[in-house]
């Protein structure tokens, strides 16, 4: 019987992390990029919780995960505000096109 162990969580976390990075790098829409960031944050969260659980480190890890979730929410709020602002200025949210500031 398959026991779900630390490694499984770590694999999932790694996959999520990679997907997040992939999303950040490839998505054109700013909102999609933001979602990629969420994936990265949550992959870390999985780590925290999993380590906390399997490593007998107490509840610290899970508390951290809560902090991160809250912060992620705040970040998302600010991010969406900024994206909105960008949309008002550029009339689009394609991060590829927003490259006026460069060499």
């Amino acid at each position, binding site marked *: 019987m398959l026991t779900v162990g630390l490694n499984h969580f770590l694999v999932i976390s790694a996959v999520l992390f990679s997907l997040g*990075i992939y999303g950040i790098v*490839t998505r054109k829409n700013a909102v999609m990029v933001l979602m990629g960031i969420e994936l990265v944050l949550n992959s870390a969260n999985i780590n925290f919780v999993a380590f906390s659980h399997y490593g007998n480190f107490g509840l610290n890890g899970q508390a951290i995960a809560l902090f991160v979730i809250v912060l992620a929410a705040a970040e998302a709020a600010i991010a969406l505000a900024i994206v909105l602002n960008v949309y008002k200025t550029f009339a689009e949210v394609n*991060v*590829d096109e*927003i*490259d006026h500031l460069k*060499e």
Partner: protein
Amino acid sequence: MSESLLINISIVILFLPLLGFTTVIFFGKKIPKLYMFEVAVLGLTLLLSIIVAYVKLSIYDTKDIIAAFTWISMGNAPALGGINIELGFKIDNITVIMLFVVNLISFLVHVFSIEYMRGDKRYTRYFAYLGIFTFSMLGIVLTHNLLMMYIFWELVGLSSYLLIGFWYEKKSASDAAKKAFIVNRIGDIGMFLGILILFTQYHTFTFDAIYEQIAAGNIPFGSNAWLTAAGILIFMGAVGKSAQFPLHVWLPDAMEGPTPVSALIHAATMVAAGVYLAVRIFVMLTADAMLVIAVVGAVTALVAATIALTQNDIKKVLAYSTVSQLGYMVMSIGVGAYAFAFFHLVTHAFFKACLFLGSGSVIHSMHHEQDIRNMGGLKKKMPITYYTFLISSLAISGVPLFSGFLSKDGILAGTLVFGKLTGHWLIPIIGFAVAGLTAFYMFRLVIMTFHGEPRDHHKYDHAHESPFVMAAPLVVLAVLSVFIWYTPNPINPSAGWVIGDWIKTPAQVTPLETRYEFMKPSSEAAKAEVHGEVIHSVEYTETMHWAHYPAMFLSLFLAGLGILVAFLFYQWKKLNADKLAEKLQGLYKFSLNKWFLDELYDLTAIAGTLRFSSILAWFDNTIVDGIVNGSATVTRFTSRMSNWFDTYIVDGAVNFSAFLSGFVGLSFRRLQTGKVQTYIVFVVFAIIILLMFFKPF
């Protein structure tokens, strides 16, 4: 008159012309009459130098008077000991005779110039320059050390430069001045190096101190070769100043200066300074050095004489004759005929000055015509000039009863002895050949100028005898070209004052093994004496006796032959010079073009240096500046390696910084795309790369 008074008067003699120079150069523009002050100053120095000469030769004739002071003192230098550079004056017989000669000729030239230069727009400045020349020349004469010799050596170079280029509006004049200075510098470098060798060893510049050390067996760097080198190098100074082969090329060009200047500087005094220097260092010359000197002198005498044969410019002929005669003197030093070298210097000074002033007189009356082919028949118009010129020509040709015969005969006898004792027969052969050539070209000159029919009637008609102030110096000098001033016996100079009493060949101080046999002392007693007169070996004395008459008759014969041939060609037209020239066209051209030496130098040394310098300048601009700065060349080279370089670098980059910043900066810039996702990709890659490099195993 006490010794100190004597030396003080000599110092006054030295500085009076400087006073004249400063006065005239600063105030001459405001007070044009000031040139008379300069002439008066020279009159005074002449008077004083006659007094000094008289006192010295009559009272102190065997005693040298020296006064010195410390010029630079460096205290007790580590590892070197006390370094004190002394300057000072030495008065011996040679000095006072030179003092007299220089001042006399200088004074006469001053007088002559009053008329000759009249109307020149820089009239007063001319006299100022003469003043500074006289000062410098007297400095050379009076010095007791090599450094001061070098200092004044350069100063005469300066005055010579100024006077040759006096009419600087003419390009040829300023060219000649420049050439004179630079060619002289070549010799001076040698002289300077020679002085350096001596100073390094002895920490003094004083002649006597150096000779004492050498006599004591202390030779430079412990090697006779260095001693020889020192002698030859110092002699290089003489090669430059006395216009010896191969540095003689400046002297004929120097004739661009005013003719009285040529008489004073480029015939009688300054060019003789080289011989004077050689006389001064004679005692430290090794046999090898002497041989070199003899050969240089002989070659110079021959080369110059052959060139003089075909020249048509009156001053050029005289110039080459000067070079040739200087060659004689130098050769004479080289063969050990010390006294005759100096004697010839003195006699030559008078008759050559006379010749030049005579030519000046001719040129003046012919309105600056210098080509003898346009002269002729001037004898009637200018009798004083003609006779003085003739007397001097006889003197230079070595005709008895004239001074030149006395000195030249001595030299020729000396070469003959040298040839016999050492086997170097070529030197006497050249010596005698040149004697014949000299007689020929001098009389060619005399005949072409004064005899026969005038060839340019227009100029001839305007020709006239020169006024008194020009004629008088000629007469004085011509008179001084007669034997009686030097010896009562017209065929034996040794019976006279100069050779018999005043000038004695000094014993050499060089290590015995480096001397010629005949320069070695004849006895143990003589060996101990440092400054004594040389007491020649018996062999030498015998040879001298043997050589006396053959030399005299041979030289007489050759001189006579030369004069005869000259008359055959030019006076009586029995022989045709032009036809001969055509027949021997190659030789003729060779002589006319001065052995093509100027061309040779132009093509090699001068063009080479200029070419090299422009290559270096290019090198400096492109490569040196480039490498430190980075260079277009390098950039271009690198650019070939990659197209990318071409596009981004070569356009803008000229120097290394741009090259480097182009490379680094641009590649960095390319990363800055403005696309945030690209940046994030870079971050991810950066993390991976960092991990690869800094992973712990």
